[in-house]
C-alpha cells in the first residue's frame, strides 16, 4: 500500500459490463415488450407479464449466487470456448477463459435489467391509441410493419428512456457484479478476463480501508458512481416524463 489511488480500471469495468448488458437486454427486452403488448394472446400476456414483473423483484444477491455457481461454469465450459472458436480472431474473445469474468458479469446484469426494459416497453406501447396501428393495418401494412414503422417511432424516445433507466440500474448494481466479475483491478481487452467495477471495489474494500486517505478514495468512487447514475437516470426519467406529458 503506497497510498496511490486511481479509478480508471473500475470505471472501465463498470462502463463496459453495463454497456454489454444493455446491448443484450435492450434488444431482447424491447422485442419481449412488443410481444406482450401487441402480439401475445391476452391470457399469455398477463401470465408472462406477471412472471416477469415478479421476477424483477428477485434480490440481486440471488442473481449473484446463481451467476457464481451456475452461470460461471457454463461460461468457462461452453459459452466461452464456443465464442472463442467462432470469433477467436477478435481480441475481446482471446486469452484464458475464467469463470468469473466481464462476460459473466454482463450476462447477469443483462438478466437483471431485462424485466425493466420489457415492462416499460410494454406499458409505452399499450399507451399508444389502438387507432394508430389500426390505421396502418387498414392501409395494408402487416402487423409487424404497423408496429415497426408506425407505433415504434411514436414511442422511440420513451423506449430510449427505459433503456437509460435500465442502464442506470446496471451501473449501480453492486452485489451481483461483485460476486461474478472476478474483482481484479486491471483493464484487459478480453471479456474472458476478470474485471472490477466502481460499486464492487467499494463493497470489497470498504471494511479494509485503514487510512483516512484510503477511505476518502472509496467515498470519492461513491461520488463518481452517484453522479454517473443520477445523470443517466435523470435523462431517462425526463424523456419518459416528456413523452407521457405530450400524451404520446
Amino acid at each position, binding site marked *: 500500500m503506497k497510498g496511490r489511488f486511481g479509478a480508471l480500471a473500475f470505471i472501465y469495468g463498470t462502463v463496459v459490463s453495463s454497456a454489454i448488458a444493455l446491448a443484450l437486454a435492450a434488444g431482447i427486452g424491447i422485442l419481449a415488450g412488443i*410481444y406482450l403488448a401487441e402480439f401475445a394472446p391476452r391470457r399469455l400476456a398477463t401470465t408472462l407479464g406477471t412472471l*416477469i414483473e415478479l421476477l424483477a423483484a428477485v434480490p440481486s444477491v440471488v442473481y449473484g449466487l446463481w451467476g457464481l455457481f451456475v452461470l460461471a461454469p457454463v461460461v468457462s465450459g461452453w459459452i466461452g470456448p464456443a465464442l472463442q472458436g467462432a470469433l477467436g480472431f477478435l481480441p475481446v474473445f482471446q486469452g484464458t477463459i475464467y469463470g468469473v469474468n466481464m462476460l459473466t458479469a454482463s450476462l447477469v446484469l443483462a438478466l437483471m435489467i431485462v424485466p425493466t426494459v*420489457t415492462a416499460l416497453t410494454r406499458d409505452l406501447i399499450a399507451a399508444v391509441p389502438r387507432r394508430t396501428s389500426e390505421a396502418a393495418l387498414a392501409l395494408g401494412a402487416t402487423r409487424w410493419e404497423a408496429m415497426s414503422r408506425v407505433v415504434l417511432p411514436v414511442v422511440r424516445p420513451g423506449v430510449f428512456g427505459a433503456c437509460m433507466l435500465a442502464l442506470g440500474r446496471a451501473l449501480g448494481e453492486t*452485489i451481483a457484479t461483485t*460476486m461474478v466479475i472476478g474483482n481484479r483491478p486491471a483493464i484487459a481487452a478480453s471479456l474472458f478476463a476478470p474485471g472490477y467495477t466502481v460499486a464492487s471495489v467499494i463493497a470489497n474494500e470498504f*471494511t479494509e480501508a485503514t487510512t483516512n486517505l484510503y477511505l476518502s478514495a472509496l467515498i470519492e468512487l461513491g461520488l463518481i458512481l452517484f453522479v454517473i447514475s443520477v445523470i443517466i437516470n435523470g435523462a431517462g426519467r425526463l424523456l419518459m416524463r416528456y413523452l407521457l406529458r405530450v400524451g404520446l
Partner: protein
Amino acid sequence: MKATGNAGLAAGRTVRGLSVGRHLNDLAWRAAAGICAVGVAAVLLMIMGYIVREGVGALSFTFLTSAPHPVGVPGGGVGNGIAGTLIIVGIAAVMAFPIGIFVGVYLAVYGHGRIADTIRFLSDVLASVPSIAVGLFAYTLLVQPFRHFSAFSASFAFAILMMPLVIRTTEGSLRLLPPELRESAVALGASDYQVTTRCLLVAARPGIVTGLLLALARVTGETAPLLFTAFGSQFWQFNPSNPMAELSLQIFTYAISPYRDWHQQAWAGALVLILAVSALGMIARVVFRQRHSVGG
C-alpha cells in the same frame, strides 16, 4: 385482440405470390418477439427452479431458528439473520412510511407549483441512486461519527431507499380518485384535515398499502448498503445500536466463502429470501386488485 380482423383484411388485400417476402418478414419478427418474451420468462423461472432444488435440502426448522455455527460444525442457520432483517426493515419502515405518505399527500392534494414539480423530480432521482451510494451516505452520517457499525444506520439507509417508492405510489393512488369525492366531502362541510384523513386516504388505501409492501420487498432483498452499516454478526443481536446479522448479507458472505456447507446454506437462505420477497409482491398484487374492484 381487436386488430385481428384488420390484419386478416390486410392479408387478403395483398396477393400471396407478390408479398411472400413481407409475410415472411412479418412472421419472423413476430416469432422472434414471442421467443424473446417466453425465453426471458423461462430463464428466470429456471433460476427459481434451481434455487428451490438446491435450497430445499438444507432448509429445516433448525436452519430457520439458530445462529450460524463455526465452519465444519454441522447445523447452524440464519435465524439471527432473519431476526436482523425484520428489525432493520421494521425500523426503516417506521421512518420511511409516515414521511413518504405525508409527502405523497402533499404532492397529490396541494402540489401544483414549481416546488412540487421539483420535489417530484428529486424523489424520482433519489429512487435511482445506487443503493451502495446510499449506504456510503449512511456510513458517513451515522457510522463514522460513532466509530462503530450499527443496525440503525442500515435502517436509515433502507428508509432512504424506500421513501421515493412510498411517495410515488401514495401520490399516484390519491390522484386516481375522482375529484367529485373530494368536492362532495368539502360540500358536506368537512375541514381540509377531515377530507384528507377520513375520505381521500381511506379511499386510496389499497393503492397506498400496495406501495408500502413493494417498498418493503425492495429493501428486504437489498444487500449492498449493509456491508458498511449493519456489517453482519455471527450471534443473536437485538440492540439496533450494535452490528447485526441480516439474511441477504449472510447469503452473500456464505456464497463467496470457500466452504461447501456454507454454499449449501447460501442456497437455502436464498430460497427463504425469495419466498419472503415474492410473498410481499403477491400480497401487494392482491391488495392492488382490491382497489380496482372497490374504487373502480
